[in-house]
């Protein structure tokens, strides 16, 4: 059939044309076009990758900041707590110390008073004894004529006793 009978001229010209077009387009069209497309695509891919990287870095930075803030807050709380504790302790220590000092002073004062009292009592006892002896001595050494005189005299003696 005529339709399926290839013409030798068309065969040769087509082959020639294809080869010429192939080499022309290969070096002057496809190479620059494909290179540009590739360059653009890698550029876009790189841009996206770096944007992602920056985003990740930002996120990391933010997390870090938050962690630092949290830590700082915690530290502040701890510091405040510690300061309060120290202050409380100082106050209570001071109170305790004051109280113990007061107790000590009171105790010392009491013991001093007691001592003084005992010494005074001892002194009184001694003086009373001596006085009694002195009065008795004087009573004995002086004869009393009347009862009135006697009483006056005792009164006079008693007045002479200094109870200090």
């Amino acid at each position, binding site marked *: 059939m005529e339709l399926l009978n290839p013409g030798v*001229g*068309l065969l040769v010209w087509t082959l020639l044309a*294809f080869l010429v077009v192939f080499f022309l387009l290969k070096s002057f*069209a496809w190479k620059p*076009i494909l290179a540009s497309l590739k360059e653009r695509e890698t550029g876009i891919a790189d841009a996206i990758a770096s944007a992602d990287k920056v985003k990740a870095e930002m996120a990391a930075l933010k997390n870090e900041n938050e962690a630092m803030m949290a830590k700082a807050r915690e530290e502040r709380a701890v510091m405040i707590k510690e300061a309060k504790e120290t202050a409380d302790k100082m106050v209570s220590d001071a109170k305790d110390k004051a109280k113990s000092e007061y107790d000590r002073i009171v105790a010392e004062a009491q013991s001093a008073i007691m001592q003084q009292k005992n010494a005074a009592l001892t002194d009184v006892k001694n003086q009373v004894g001596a006085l009694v002896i002195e009065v008795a001595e004087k009573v004995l050494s002086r004869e009393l004529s009347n009862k009135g005189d006697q009483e006056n005299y005792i009164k006079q003696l008693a007045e002479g006793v200094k109870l200090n």
Partner: protein
Amino acid sequence: MGMASKSIKTLLVAVFSIFLLLFSANSFASDAPAGGAEKHEASSFDPAKLIMEHIMDAHEFHFATIGEKHISIPLPVILYSPERGLTMFNYSKFNHGHDVYEGYKSEEGHIVAVNAAGEHDTTVTVYDMSLTRNVVQMFIALILLCVLMIGVANKYKRNGAKVAPSGFQNAVEPVITFVRDEVGKPNLGHAYEKFMPYLLTVFFFILINNLMGLIPGSANVTGNIAFTIVLGVISFFVILFSTNRHFWAHIFNPPVPGFVKPILVPVEFLGIFTKPFALIVRLFANMVAGHIVITCFVMLIFIFGAMSKVAGWGFAPVSMAFTIFIYFIEILVAFIQAFIFTNLTAVFIGQSMEGAHHDEAHH
């Protein structure tokens, strides 16, 4: 607005094609008496012959014949004969097949050598290397392709890669990326870059010739078996040169039981040739069929017209509607066939180096 102008254009194309066919039908009417012996008695209108004339190659672009006047562009004839050497002249020298020139004459569009008596001399071998209408149209299409593509490439060079594409560059870029991402990469893996210039050239080579062939009055380049044979044979060699050890091992020692081998080895071996053969026939048959269908629908008007004038006029709108419909399908087919040829070539190349693929994948 865009849609309206587009449909008007399509209509113009259709009307234009009708007129051309009308005139060529007339030409037959006027040519028949000159043919003498081949004269039909009742009607000289022969649709089959017209259709064949439309889809076959010729030595001139014949647009119309009005009365005795032929409106055509005769093309250069280049003949080589081992006996007579190289001869070059214009086809118009044959005076539409009536005259003998430099010992050659045109018999139904075929140029044959004649002897002194003016009869066909079968002892002289003639190789017709003429720039026929298919050749000329293909050259025009390819010059257009080169100008367009190199223009686009220069735009890329001028603007650099960072600038967004504009104009025609914007129309070409998705097609190129489509061929690269949907044809090259899936079938050829990371070896795709080496084959991209070939695949792109094949795709656009077929596409632009398909589209040029749709212009009314133009030649049917991609529907010519010689054109598809060249592309198929080139594909065959590209496939063959990209084969590896694994491919041949699979053909001559397929992994099947021994008794199946005598059957499978010839089948596998034939497969090497049937693949490009299928490419050749597929493109040829698809394009030729489209052209035949369109011309058939237009012919129907004149077939009905031959029965009665009213039937002819009455059928014209129906025929036009079908022709316009098929025309749109043909535009689609122009792209689809270019894609299929390229894609299958890529698939076959991919198959021929599949083993290497696996090897590289395992490393």
